[in-house]
């Protein structure tokens, strides 16, 4: 394996007519990394993923995937990628097993080898007993696991996952994360998009925060929290009073105050100390929660908006 990055982008732009979906981003993803795009809907994550997956042509800028040019070598690059799209596109007319063996044929994998890998991958995603069943009766989580198994059938150098757990229940999400974590430990390079903070924190070694087609921050989850947020965050609620009306009154406590419609966020290295100061000033919030900073806070600080609305 060369030390060349698997993904290299400079000033990458994607426009649809007048609309700029991706507005000049720079990226580098190294082999073995688990890399995430974090951002709200419409931030440009999926458009970026589609360019990396060589199914969408960049409007301008430089993009190299696995050291190749996606426009000229699209077919060759796609042969070494595994793609788990946002919308399931499993083949409803084929069985679970045939979905994998048929897909293997698309990569020119011999039939016997395709069957061997299909059996192995169904084992990995815990769907062996569904092998001969149709796809339609499977739950959302099972379908997503099957899609991930399908993405692995060509033993890809790079796996692209576009919002892998959107729409799944918590149990299905955790099972999926656990499987993805195993892939990551086995050295598979993962690139995923998500608008879930916990997903990014669980899976990504490094991530970029995207907003409005641009990258607004980059680093490991820990690094982003340390850089942009404080160690702790205090969530204060004041019954029926609007949180914004307390901003002046609590001015000076902690590093920063962020009024949300339902609560006031108070950023401070010392949460308990900040709460004492609130009480000392004579205010009694109806509820107080001191917690560690998360990527959600980073996003709010960087963009002024919450992620999932």
């Amino acid at each position, binding site marked *: 394996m060369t030390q060349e990055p698997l993904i290299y982008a400079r000033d990458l732009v994607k426009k649809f007519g007048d609309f700029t979906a991706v507005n000049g981003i720079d990226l580098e993803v190294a082999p073995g990394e688990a890399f995430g795009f974090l951002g709200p809907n419409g931030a440009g994550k999926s458009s970026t993923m589609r360019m990396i997956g060589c199914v969408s*042509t960049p409007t301008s800028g430089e993009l190299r995937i696995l050291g190749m040019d996606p426009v000229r070598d699209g077919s060759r690059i796609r042969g070494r990628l595994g*793609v788990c799209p946002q919308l*399931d*596109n*499993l*083949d409803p*007319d084929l069985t679970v097993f045939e979905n994998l063996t048929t*897909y293997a*044929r*698309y990569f020119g994998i011999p039939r016997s080898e395709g069957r061997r890998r299909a059996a192995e991958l169904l084992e990995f995603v815990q769907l062996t007993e569904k092998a001969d069943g149709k796809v339609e009766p499977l739950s959302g989580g099972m379908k997503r696991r099957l899609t991930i198994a399908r993405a692995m059938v060509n033993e890809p150098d790079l796996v692209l996952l576009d919002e892998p757990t959107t729409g799944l229940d918590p149990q299905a999400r955790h099972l999926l994360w656990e499987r993805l974590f195993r892939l990551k430990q086995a050295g598979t390079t993962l690139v995923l998009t998500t608008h879930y903070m916990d997903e990014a924190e669980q899976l990504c070694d490094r991530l970029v925060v995207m907003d409005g087609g641009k990258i607004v921050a980059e680093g490991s989850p820990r690094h982003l929290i340390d850089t942009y947020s404080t160690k702790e965050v205090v969530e204060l609620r004041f019954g029926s009073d609007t949180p914004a009306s307390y901003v002046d009154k609590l001015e000076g406590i902690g590093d920063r105050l962020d009024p949300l419609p339902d609560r006031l966020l108070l950023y401070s290295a010392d949460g308990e100390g900040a709460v004492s100061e609130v009480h000392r000033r004579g205010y009694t919030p109806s509820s107080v929660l001191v917690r560690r900073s998360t990527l959600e806070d980073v996003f709010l600080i960087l963009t002024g908006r919450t992620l999932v609305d």
Partner: protein
Amino acid sequence: MAGTLAILERHLTIYKRNWYASVFSSFILPVLFVISIGIGVGSYVGTVDGWEYLSYIVPGVLASGAFQTAIGESTFPVLGDFKWSRAYHAMRATPLRIKDMIFGWQLYIQIRVFIASVIFLVVSAIFGAVHSPWVVVTPLICALVALATAAPVSAFSAGLENDSYFALLFRFIVIPSTLFAGVFFPVTQLPLLVRPLAYASPLWHAVELCRAAMLGTPPPWPVAVHVGYLIVLAVGGLYWADRAYSKRLKD
């Protein structure tokens, strides 16, 4: 080529699960046609162009079977694989090229048409409707009309967002073609003004070629013109399909 065959394999994997239904219908439907129209109606008609009615319509029913299979397989299944199952989007994420997707599906249609044509020819021979050794070229004519029809119709389907246009396609193209493109009576019976519509239909050319081959008579126009027209439709259709599939799958 390998990619085209991989896609053909997908279609055949699905087909092998319900092949008996389609083979049965491609066997039983022509038999019913031959009996009801060829023999039943034929006994009132007497002869057309000097042939008993059964022998006159059998080549036309053969060609129209290929035409209808081609239309049927390039409407809902194509739209469905773009819109509902998104099978083409799944293929797009692999090394497969758009040409593989188009050729793979056309090859599948060719296999379907070939099976149906051979079955129908066997039935026709049993009913004594084969009069010339040139009958051996009829599967080729069926293959050509199937491509000349399925390629442009696939392209049309690839550009659609919903299936409401198919009703128009069936009502204004498929059914009129089947009724007025020389299958059941010579197009010279049609008023001069509407005859060009029959000539424009790929089906008429295939009907006349099949009839010439099965009866051992020359077709109304030179063979090269009939064949050439179908080739132009086929090549133009494939080109259009490439444009339509690309538009749908690339951005």
